[in-house]
């Protein structure tokens, strides 16, 4: 029991279960999933589908945060990728040609990787603090996205492009499939190969990892480029879902949601360890929260209030200092030992 309590996914899991339970009580047939016209429908599917871009961005963010960094520019990359793809598709003679759409997707994903790599270069090559290095692209990137779309909202009408964010494949929403593929690849690369260990080593102690022969520079650039790629795919999904690109508002504040998802999932912002499962859980909590707010009839204006409340609760529950201070008086013998252990393991 105490092992379960101390598992890093325990508290996020409890919060997600609580939110889902609230939904089950408030909404009839919340858990029902049915197949209509060969497509999967249901509230749970919707949560996964609308949460797909956030999960993707948060996955990239997890690896960046595991290296002890942070990427504030993902929201701008989301906007840039969507704007560039829509611009290229809008210029096509036949917007439904698969080849043209693939080329547009390829170019914008390439640019997203390049932008991520630029962040990585600033962090690893120039040695700039990650939060500032990515702040540059966060501010300038919004301008770039508007420059690409000329300040307009680009609207397109392309069947193949629509598939990415709004389509279905093998009865599943295509977005969910993309997330599953990226998640499986990331999990394989980081947990089956040594890559994850190297990332954690760099995040835990950059100097020690350098002395033990890890080439941190290349690794950092790769991780930031991967984060850019994830943000790019998310950008394509978001713009494809509405068949348009809005340089100003696409992906606005998604970086904050993504960082939140990562933190809720138990990855420490100090770096050195990460949990992909936790991140997915965190992103799902945020998405479920949004859905819950709509389904239980809370006015949408107060969405942010609820978000603030949940963020505070989850972060407090995860804070070893908070647990030590609050639970200390009630369960003196066991609490003091878990608290001190937790403090050693989780340097906040």
């Amino acid at each position: 029991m105490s092992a379960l309590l101390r598992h890093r996914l325990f508290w996020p899991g409890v919060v997600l279960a609580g939110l889902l339970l609230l939904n089950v009580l408030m909404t009839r047939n919340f858990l029902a999933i049915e197949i209509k016209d060969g497509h999967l429908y249901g509230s749970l599917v919707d949560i996964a589908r609308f949460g797909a871009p956030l999960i993707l961005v948060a996955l990239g963010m997890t690896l960046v945060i595991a290296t002890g960094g942070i990427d504030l520019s993902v929201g701008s990359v989301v906007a840039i990728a969507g704007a560039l793809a829509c611009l290229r598709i809008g210029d096509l003679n036949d917007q439904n040609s698969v080849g043209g759409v693939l080329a547009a997707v390829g170019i914008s994903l390439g640019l997203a990787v390049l932008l991520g790599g630029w962040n990585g270069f600033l962090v690893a090559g120039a040695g700039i603090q990650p939060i500032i290095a990515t702040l540059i692209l966060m501010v300038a990137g919004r301008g770039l996205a508007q420059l690409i779309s000329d300040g307009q909202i680009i609207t397109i009408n392309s069947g193949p492009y629509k598939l990415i964010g709004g389509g279905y494949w093998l009865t599943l929403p295509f977005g969910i499939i993309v997330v599953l593929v990226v998640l499986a690849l990331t999990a394989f690369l980081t947990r089956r190969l040594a890559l994850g260990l190297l990332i954690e080593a760099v995040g835990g102690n950059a100097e020690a990892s350098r002395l033990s022969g890890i080439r941190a520079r290349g690794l950092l650039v790769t991780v930031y480029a991967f984060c850019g790629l994830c943000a790019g795919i998310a950008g394509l999904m978001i713009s494809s879902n509405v068949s348009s690109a809005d340089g100003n508002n696409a992906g606005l504040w998604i970086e904050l949601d993504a960082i939140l998802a990562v933190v809720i999932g138990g990855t420490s912002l100090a770096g050195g360890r990460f949990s992909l499962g936790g991140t997915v859980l965190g992103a799902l909590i945020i998405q479920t929260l949004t859905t819950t707010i709509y389904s239980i009839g809370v006015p949408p204006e107060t969405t942010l209030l609820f978000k603030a409340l949940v963020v505070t609760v989850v972060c407090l529950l995860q804070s070893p200092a908070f647990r030590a201070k609050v639970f200390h008086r009630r369960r003196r013998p066991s609490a003091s030992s878990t608290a001190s252990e937790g403090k050693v393991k989780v340097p906040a």
Partner: protein
Amino acid sequence: MTTPVGAASLTRRLPVPRKYIPVLVTACLFAAMFVAGGIRYEGFATGQIILNVFIDNAFLLVVAVGMTFVILTGGIDLSVGSVVALSTMISASLLPAWPAPAVMVLVPAIGALLGLAMGAIIHYFEIQPFIVTLAGMFLARGLCYTIGTDSVSITDPAFTAFAQTRVDLVADMWVSPSVLIAVLVVLVAAYVLHYTPFGRRVYAVGGSEQSALLMGLPVARTKIAVYTISGFCSALGGLLLSFYMLSGYGLHAVGMELDAIAAVVIGGTLLTGGSGYLFGTVLGVLVLGLIQTVISFEGTLSSWWTKIFIGLLLFTFIVLQRLIAGRGKQ
């Protein structure tokens, strides 16, 4: 870490201490922009242009002052933009019933209280400032929308007087009362930061929290105080914004935290904390304001160029700081 030899010999030859270089560079940039603008556009090179920058950015100046305190301790406050919006919203919704002086006292008090709460959570529960102030940002923005989703206009005579009064200076130049308040805030903050024990503690905590603790400095009080100051300054900035806009709206000051952080960074303060000057922040705000003025004078440039220019400036300054800091460590 390789540093170009040119920069190295440059910093060695300069007669000023290395710590002043970022502020000096910002000052030179500001002067250069002003001169270039004066040559390029008619009617640019007047004192009123600079005063207009102050008038249009008085609220940002006050917010950036609070942000400087927080960043000097190595923290960050993402909630400032939302607290500004919340202040305008509270002022606008209370004013029909409440007397204006009461509102002017209550609003900064609420801001300080929010900052105090965030500072206490950050310190006592050891949660990163980034996350706590992010929650604060959601909370304040959410409170705005709970009060009302529409823009509320302010018709209170005291507030409109603040908005429309011109304080004449020499030679046909004038400023708004908000500018005077902002300048007062800057002077007080500069005094506190550079000439009081509290100011030294802010630098000490930013330099190394561990060392400050071991030296017996009241780290808890200092850390909580800087977030309280930031909350107070944001709310005061919100009051100035409601003088300027004469309305309260939940969508006011979206993204202002980025402007404030950018101003502080351009002003030469290190985001890692422990190094920087309040005067640099003032220059940072002026540079940001002058960019907007230049772009409006240019006429053909679209508004998004502002963001790209600010990004480029940030990049230049960060690389510059990096070069100077790199030399300092070697």
